[in-house]
């Protein structure tokens, strides 16, 4: 009964999105007030019904209603409650329903917080949002209905991929989707502006908080996924340049660019067409990501249920939305007259460089991701593009980006003095260089690239702190008050850049100074890595709710004194049968010690395959990313961006 209600509510939401996307838009074009006033109530109604639909599906998962195909395929009675709930968005159908749900949530938020926008513009934005939603509802109802029943129904479900049964991953997709879909708002605003033929500072002030919000979610979602890969896959890696990772990374790169170019539109009333284009591209990458993940067009370790027929549907939808908006852009962009002019050396130029580098980086990732496909389609050759390409090409672009990042915030708007700027920052450069040399001396050297990345990280760290100190006039009278009272957006920028600096330092450590040791160990055997001595004390067979496991106990000591015990597990899940590794990690500020227990090497189970990893500064990466998200949230709390605050100048 509840399942049927959910299905019915989904159909209602679909109809409401159609209404929201058409009549009010017509009203806006013909200036008919009554048609326009349909818009916001339709947005609320749409959200209400899709929420009912989503929670009905969640209910079916919680009570394990196996008469629903989707539940039978993706759940199991023995699964812990958390994973029954997370299975709601873990399956193909459920994840698309979740997309639609989040899309409608953002639509309702725009309807509410944007109520002081000029009516016709508000209506246009909501109509664009609804049209995208309509496509997703049709996709659900026509090709991927999550409420489909099966009869006779199975007594037990198939279970969820055990790798995904992890708290980190339960929350990774919702965060990522909040980010992906958050970019839809920016997109709707951009298309709305193209239809209205007008972009100004107020528009940018409107777009920035939504972009920031989406960016925070994307950053958090990406890093949570990366963290999961780090501790769950058992290889100590945290980024694999896998097509699905890239699919989430490309919108992040473009959203980061958009975040910065919107500042230029807001402050200097220029770069308008470019910002609009970025807004369209950012969301296009979100949709493209969904297409890549859901259509099976690229092989990936993220082997989700794939189906070419669905692929054709998404591709057609993609073509309508992205192609349509890019065509609209091509026809209307000329109307967006740039305002303020700026000199080649200025804050604006720095932000333009940032935008160019980030966009090219996104294109490089796109190219690397699609190249195997293009090659296969044109010549039939099967190749894979792996980390070496991405690390080199992407890394090459990040070097100038990090250099400019250190300069940008200290540069004046309109026109800046490069010589003076470099003069002010030369001590910072020298300090970063010296610190790199000292660290290299202490750790006994390493690869050249390690020094480059470490140096860039330190440069960014120090220059960000320097800019902050100059801005708040540190140690001059009243500086405490200035620290607190500085605009939240500037504070957020400092945190954001600082976070990236810390993450870059972490990446240099964990990428270039990591150690690896594989061994067959008997009880009592020791292995040493990174100054730690790791001794296999014992193993034990244990049983969890839906798995059995071997749990090993390792004593970890340093310089003869015991520090801790680590207990990695090798689990074998029952439904579906699948082995997983649960690494045990000792995290400290200087390095992570990462221990994995493998299979027994002999029939008596006295010898075990053991893998040890030593990952310097790994914690810095996670901390840096967390600080970046914090910076985004601080910036979001800036008074200028209070979503309900009245906007001036947009008439």
């Amino acid at each position, binding site marked *: 009964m509840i399942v049927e209600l959910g299905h019915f509510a989904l159909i209602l939401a679909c109809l409401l999105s159609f209404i929201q996307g058409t009549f009010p838009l017509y009203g806006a074009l013909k200036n008919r007030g009554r048609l326009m006033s349909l818009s916001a109530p339709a947005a609320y109604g749409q959200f209400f019904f899709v929420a009912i639909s989503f929670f009905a599906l969640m209910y079916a998962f919680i009570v394990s209603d196996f008469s629903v195909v989707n539940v039978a395929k993706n759940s199991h009675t023995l699964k812990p409650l958390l994973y029954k709930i997370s299975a709601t968005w873990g399956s193909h159908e459920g994840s698309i329903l979740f997309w639609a749900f989040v899309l409608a949530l953002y639509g309702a938020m725009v309807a509410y917080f944007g109520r002081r926008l000029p009516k016709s513009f508000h209506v246009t934005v909501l109509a664009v949002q609804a049209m995208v939603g309509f496509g997703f509802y049709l996709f659900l109802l026509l090709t991927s209905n999550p409420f489909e029943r099966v009869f006779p129904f199975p007594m037990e479900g198939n279970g969820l991929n055990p790798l995904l049964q992890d708290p980190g991953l339960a929350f990774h997709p919702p965060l990522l989707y909040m980010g992906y879909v958050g970019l839809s708002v920016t997109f709707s605003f951009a298309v709305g502006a193209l239809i209205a033929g007008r972009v100004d500072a107020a528009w940018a002030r409107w777009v920035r908080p939504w972009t920031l919000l989406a960016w925070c979610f994307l950053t958090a979602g990406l890093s949570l996924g990366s963290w999961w890969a780090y501790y769950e896959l058992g290889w100590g890696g945290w980024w694999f340049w896998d097509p699905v990772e890239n699919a989430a990374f490309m919108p992040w790169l473009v959203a980061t660019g958009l975040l910065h170019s919107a500042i230029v539109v807001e402050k200097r009333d220029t770069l308008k*067409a470019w910002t609009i*284009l970025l807004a*369209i*591209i950012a969301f*296009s990458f979100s949709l493209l990501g969904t*297409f890549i993940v859901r*259509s*099976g*067009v*690229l*092989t990936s370790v993220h082997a989700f249920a794939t189906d*070419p027929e669905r*692929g*054709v549907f998404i*591709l057609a939808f*993609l*073509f309508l939305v*992205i*192609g349509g908006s*890019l*065509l609209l*852009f*091509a*026809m209307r*962009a*000329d109307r967006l007259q740039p305002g303020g002019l700026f000199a080649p050396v200025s804050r604006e130029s720095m932000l333009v460089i940032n935008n160019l580098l980030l966009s090219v980086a996104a294109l490089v990732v*796109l190219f690397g991701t*699609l190249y195997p*496909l*293009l090659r*296969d*389609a044109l010549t039939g050759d*099967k190749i894979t593009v792996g980390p070496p390409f991405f690390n080199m090409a992407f890394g090459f672009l990040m070097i100038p980006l990090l250099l400019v990042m250190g300069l940008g915030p200290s540069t004046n708007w309109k026109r800046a003095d490069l010589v003076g700027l470099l003069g002010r920052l030369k001590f910072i450069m020298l300090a970063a260089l010296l610190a790199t040399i000292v660290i290299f001396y202490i750790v006994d050297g390493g690869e050249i690239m390690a020094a480059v990345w470490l140096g860039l990280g330190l440069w960014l760290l120090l220059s960000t702190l320097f800019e902050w100190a100059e801005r708040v006039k540190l140690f001059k009278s009243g500086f405490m008050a200035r620290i607190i009272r500085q605009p939240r957006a500037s504070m957020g920028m400092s945190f954001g850049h600082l976070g990236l600096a810390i993450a870059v330092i972490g990446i240099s450590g964990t990428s270039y100074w990591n150690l690896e040791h594989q061994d067959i160990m008997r009880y009592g055997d020791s292995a040493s890595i990174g100054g730690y001595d790791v001794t296999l004390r014992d193993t034990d067979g244990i049983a969890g709710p839906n798995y059995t496991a071997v749990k090993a106990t390792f004593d970890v000591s340093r310089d003869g004194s015991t520090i801790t015990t680590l207990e990695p597990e090798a689990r074998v899940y029952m439904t579906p049968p699948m082995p997983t590794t649960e690494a045990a990690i000792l995290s400290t500020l200087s390095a992570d010690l990462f221990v994995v227990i493998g299979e027994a090497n002999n029939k008596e189970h006295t010898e075990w395959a053991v893998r040890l990893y030593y990952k310097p500064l790994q914690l810095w990466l996670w901390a840096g990313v967390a600080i970046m998200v914090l910076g985004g949230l601080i910036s979001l709390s800036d008074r200028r961006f209070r979503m309900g605050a009245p906007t001036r100048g947009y008439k």
Partner: protein
Amino acid sequence: MNKFIPFAIFCAISLALYVGLSLNPSNIPSELINDPVPEFALTEVGSDTASFSSETLATEEDVIIMNFFASWCAPCYVEHPFLMELKNRGYKIYGVAYKDRARNITRFLEEQGNPYTQVGADENGRVGIEFGVYGMPETYIIKNGIIKYKHIGPILEMQFEDEFIPILESAR
């Protein structure tokens, strides 16, 4: 700047994706095509000596079929009757039981019939790894110890007609 450039790029990408949809991503050719088989020596099921080895394949005069299978693999049960038929049609098939216990293999062959000239027991899966096997079942066509063709998944009758026979014929 020409404002139509983004649209044009997008059209090209869409076209590539559309073509990509019709490709089969699991269709990956073996790196070992036209290379000699990796060296191996396996105990034959039911004996104690390493009597089935890469040497066996290299000295084999006929074009042979080499089939990786396991008793724990459901698609192998689907494929098995067809292997029996191939044996009756006069093809020579060698088997490698991948990550399986001798007892289970023996029972599997007793129940399902034995189409194999020889069956090697690859208990720890090492030979499978050397061959680049990543799904059960997988089948190779081998001539004079040289790998000519690799097929992933159970062999269906139609596929055998379309894919195997031309290669078996040309290799003869």
